[in-house]
């Protein structure tokens, strides 16, 4: 095999590393991607693959909506079981329904299409939901995808080469090409000053029974539990897959790197799912697992340059699949000295962590 020159090296072949490599290669760079395991085998293979616009902070709204626009282009040619299912943010009471309305207004300001469903419209859209819910906010342009396949397709882009290897081989002082580190929850192995913690999440997948749910269904309370709290939490979050399966989530807690599932947590997650969608109670679960969201103190990612000279793209918590394209684009902009696609300052590595 003849050696060609490497313009940029990307460590980590999860969805974030794959997207960084893709946008760099698309700009003409020769990119070498290095991963110690199977591409997509980290958080990317454990996640739900919900591509979702989130507006609980201005930064998150900008980042997610820009990323979704990039995803739309990518999904025109990437085969990754993509389903344009949209999202329903479900209110449990009138106060939450009012919150849905406000959320819809903020999305409209950002030119993200959203529509309020009242009780009747909600029943028509999702007859399997338990009766008596006041309504929901529907965001039609969200998707569900299978992220490991998307990562694999992105890595097939001409100009990208994949190599098995360990990022710990990297030395800051060596005469190396620019290096991007997209190591997710393993970032502190190389950069102990970057506080990224594994935030465990459980998922369970039911056998194929198409036609039960049509949107990704998320209870509104999910957002505050995910982004405004570090407490252990369980939220109703159910996704129809292109395969006809139903994916059930989702939980959050800090449990180190032990990926064993917790029986009590799984049980509570299942009970909650059946409380929202009673017919789910009889669905057979073929598999359940736990994975880790790479979490920062303020739950926003690190995207930028480290004191050592390394470029970092990590710490996307529960939105890394959604945010991969905008992250990859921004990294390519920064590394190649182009005009950045979004203002990078909120994602600087040396920011003061603020709770969103």
């Amino acid at each position: 095999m003849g050696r060609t020159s490497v313009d940029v090296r990307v460590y980590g072949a999860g969805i974030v590393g794959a997207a960084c490599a893709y946008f760099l290669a698309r700009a003409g760079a020769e990119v070498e991607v290095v991963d110690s395991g199977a591409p997509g085998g980290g958080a990317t293979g454990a996640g739900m693959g919900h591509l979702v616009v989130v507006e609980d902070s201005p930064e998150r709204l900008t980042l997610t909506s820009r990323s979704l626009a990039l995803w739309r282009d990518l999904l025109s040619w990437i085969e990754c079981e993509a389903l344009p299912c949209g999202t329903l943010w479900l209110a449990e009471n009138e106060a939450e329904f009012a919150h849905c309305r406000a959320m819809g207004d903020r999305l409209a300001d950002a030119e993200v299409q959203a529509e309020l469903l009242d009780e009747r419209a909600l029943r028509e859209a999702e007859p399997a939901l338990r009766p008596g819910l006041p309504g929901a906010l529907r965001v039609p342009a969200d998707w569900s995808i299978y992220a490991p396949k998307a990562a694999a397709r992105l890595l097939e882009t001409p100009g990208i080469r994949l190599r098995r290897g360990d990022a710990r081989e990297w030395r800051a002082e060596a005469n190396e090409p620019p290096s991007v580190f997209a190591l997710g929850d393993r970032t502190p192995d190389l950069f102990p000053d970057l506080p990224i913690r594994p935030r465990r999440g459980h998922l369970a997948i039911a056998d194929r029974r198409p036609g039960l749910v049509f949107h990704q269904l998320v209870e509104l309370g999910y957002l505050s539990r995910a982004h405004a709290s570090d407490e252990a939490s369980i939220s109703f979050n159910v996704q129809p897959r292109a395969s006809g399966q139903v994916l059930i989530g989702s939980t959050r807690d800090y449990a180190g790197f032990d990926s064993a599932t917790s029986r009590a947590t799984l049980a509570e997650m299942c009970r909650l799912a059946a409380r929202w969608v009673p017919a789910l109670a009889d669905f057979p679960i073929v598999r359940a697992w736990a994975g880790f969201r790479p979490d920062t103190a303020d739950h926003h990612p690190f995207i930028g340059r480290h004191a050592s000279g390394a470029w970092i793209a990590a710490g996307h918590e529960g939105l890394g699949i959604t945010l991969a394209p905008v992250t990859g684009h921004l990294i390519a902009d920064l590394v190649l000295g182009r005009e950045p696609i979004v203002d990078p300052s909120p994602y600087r590595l040396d920011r003061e962590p603020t709770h969103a």
Partner: protein
Amino acid sequence: MVGAGPAGLAAAETAARLGAAVVILDENAAPGGQIWRGPSPEAAGLLDLARRAGARWFGGCTVFDADPEGRLWVTDVSGMQSTRIGFERLVLATGARERFLPFPGWTLPGVVGAGGLQALVKGGAGVEEQRVVVAGSGPLLLAVGAFLAEQGAEVACVCEQAPLGRLGRFISASPNLALGAARLRLALGSSPYRFGTWVAEACGRDRLESVVVTDGRRRWRERCDWLACGYGLVPNLELARLLGCKTKGDAVVTDSDLQTTIPGVFAAGEALGIGGVECALVEGSMAGSAAAGKAPSRELRERREGLRRASVRMADAFALRPEVLSLASPETILCRCEDVRIEQVEHARSYREAKLLTRLGMGPCQGRICGIASQTLFGWTPDRVRPPLIPVSVRCLGEEEE
């Protein structure tokens, strides 16, 4: 006791006799495990003894989760109901299943496992005057061939991939096995038992019509209605691995009392490596005794050692030849649940990578068939085991703990 085959029944009988409060569970409705299927006097006899000593038997109960703190979760065949059972000591007598290797045409209706066809017939399927080819590897083939012949099938041939030379050396070193084999050979009647041959391809339009048999030099066609094909047995280790018991190769690791690396959890029978019925009975008695608090007798230990030595020789004699690992063509299906072809995974570097990219092993059977096949073909190591071990309903998984 999880499993009511020879090992589990012997363990139950022994432990109950020594005064332990025993519960026997098996996912099959009837006791007997793989070998004593259908109405079986041996299974009924052992179970009867165990029950008279106070053991309780629950058929149709699959263990889908367990923890080393002494809890089992059990479901019925529907996967809709579940119960929790506590234990102080546990005996894993979960037996083995057949190894299937993919080859062109193996997914045609009419192609079944060797033990699989035997079980079908014991369950009432008729094979009278139907033409059957039995193929693959292991002593099971001869047993199945003889059984099918007795049931009135026309056994076209039994194809054993292992060469005569190796088997001959093994048989001549094991006189009592030789006797059993001779008896089975007799029952097979005039049908040929061919060493060093294997099925390269199964052919037919909508259903099996014939197979191509080869000895590596020549290829010929055998017309048949059924192909009963299995490449030996592999222990069921999911429950042991879920509990955290150490395994080595294809077997649970134990001490000389058959206690696994998890205190209070014992194992017996095929779960310790393929050893046959007699070995399963001896180990069942040993594990049952140890679990009830009495060290197994020296006589049992010595018998077991002899039987295990023989089983190692047997495994060598029936070792798979490289040709049967490369029968599949790129288009051959490897994972039936998810329709994954060989060409989609042959460049993957690990089972995990193949799973991630193709959904291999992610269907309802959760890799019970293709996991073993791909590990045999590509040398991959299996993935971590997580509950539920079999599909169970959201309601079962969500059951409150009191």
